[in-house]
């Protein structure tokens, strides 16, 4: 049985614990479960790992995420031990350099890490991938998403107004976890597309905004034309920072696209080629001003950004560098023609990272 190193405190009841958690800044305001010795120990014992093992430093505070610290936050989020490997995979993904977690936590952009769970574990643990996948209704979605947020809060120190300078934030900063609807998806699962085997379970973490819902009724051509007509707006983050973007399809429009012969790669290519800005229109509207274009289109540090001053009015500008910067996942049920649009943080980071979910160590 694991021996814990964190100090313990006695509390009389749940509400005394809640006040203690608020007073010490251990929660962002929502109720959290008391991480009792019994619950934390049960998680560590399930994982079969040393509680002192360090997963990594979580920015911006650079707090050390040990197995014990992760277990404590998972217990506070209401996780059962079986949920914790999913949280650990998400943490490992967020610690990869291309995710730039420090930046994601500190930016003025409202982005939050979205955890997309895929593979057999979706059914095994009861993640909701169908109706309401981004909302409530599943303990697995809720506690994994919440655990990730509490780790970012307690270990990473992403505190609004102190280190988290997001001008407005977003509700997804409380929790942001959904699962891929492989059962009704006509396409290759996200983790397989990203190099893992179908029988593996995985998480893909992507820093983005809550899905803006698009209503895309009709046949494939109409679905794609609605997307192409909606995406290239000048207020969208892609306009000044490019980066990556997630198109989360409900099962119904995804099935319609597949029926017409479109693969995920076809959808990405079509959207990239057709969802574009017209240079002349941007100039005439006063949005794009010569000499300031670098401030608007594709922003700072994007070496591949075209030199707008040289482009004729009939040029059509892509929203992101290439089709590979668009992510497509099937999240949600087949009840209606809905899909979601989630712009990422831009070319500063928060890029999608996929990690396999590793089971407990048995030796």
């Amino acid at each position: 049985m694991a021996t814990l190193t964190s100090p313990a405190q006695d509390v009389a009841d749940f509400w005394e614990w809640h006040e203690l958690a608020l007073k010490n800044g251990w929660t962002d305001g929502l109720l959290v479960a008391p991480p009792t010795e019994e619950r934390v120990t049960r998680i560590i014992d399930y994982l079969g790992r040393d509680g002192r093992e360090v997963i990594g430093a979580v920015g911006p505070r650079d707090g050390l995420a040990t197995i014990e610290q992760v277990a404590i936050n998972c217990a506070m989020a209401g996780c059962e031990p079986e949920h914790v490997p999913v949280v650990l995979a998400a943490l490992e993904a967020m610690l990869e350099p291309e995710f730039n977690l420090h930046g994601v936590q500190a930016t003025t952009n409202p982005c939050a890490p979205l955890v997309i769970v895929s593979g057999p574990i979706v059914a095994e643990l009861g993640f909701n991938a169908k109706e309401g996948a981004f909302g409530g209704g599943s303990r697995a979605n809720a506690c994994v998403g919440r655990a990730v947020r509490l780790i970012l809060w307690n270990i990473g120190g992403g505190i609004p107004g102190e280190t988290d300078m997001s001008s407005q934030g977003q509700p997804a900063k409380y929790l942001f976890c959904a699962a891929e609807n492989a059962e009704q998806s006509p396409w290759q699962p996200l983790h397989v597309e990203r190099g893992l085997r179908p029988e593996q379970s995985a998480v893909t973490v992507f820093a983005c905004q809550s899905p803006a819902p698009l209503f895309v009724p009709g046949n494939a051509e109409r679905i794609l034309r609605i997307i192409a007509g909606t995406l290239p707006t000048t207020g969208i983050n892609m306009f000044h920072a490019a980066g990556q973007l997630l198109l989360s399809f409900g099962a119904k429009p995804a099935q319609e696209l597949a029926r017409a012969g479109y693969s995920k790669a076809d959808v990405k290519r079509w959207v990239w080629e057709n969802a574009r800005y017209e240079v002349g229109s941007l100039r005439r509207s006063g949005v794009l001003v010569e000499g300031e274009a670098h401030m608007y289109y594709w922003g700072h540090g994007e070496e591949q950004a075209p030199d707008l001053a040289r482009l004729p009015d009939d040029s059509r500008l892509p929203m992101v560098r290439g089709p590979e910067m668009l992510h497509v996942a099937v999240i949600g049920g087949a009840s209606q023609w809905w899909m979601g649009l989630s712009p990422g943080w831009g070319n500063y980071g928060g890029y999608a990272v996929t990690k396999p979910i590793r089971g407990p160590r048995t030796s």
Partner: protein
Amino acid sequence: MLDAFDFETQGKPTITICHDTFERAARHHATALGLPDLPLLVEPAPRAGNLTTNAGELAEGGLERVVAALTAR
């Protein structure tokens, strides 16, 4: 911030340049690193329209302050 921390703990003076938007964040980070008085050079964050016209001026003004900060100790 981490580079500044490394240099400072080796006894080498630093000054960390940050935008005003992130001054509080930088100060919190410095405090978390155990260096609450870490020198910061705070510059206004670029806003649409002012970067190309003011960048040189900002850099020149900043340079003097960087040199002063690094040679003051």
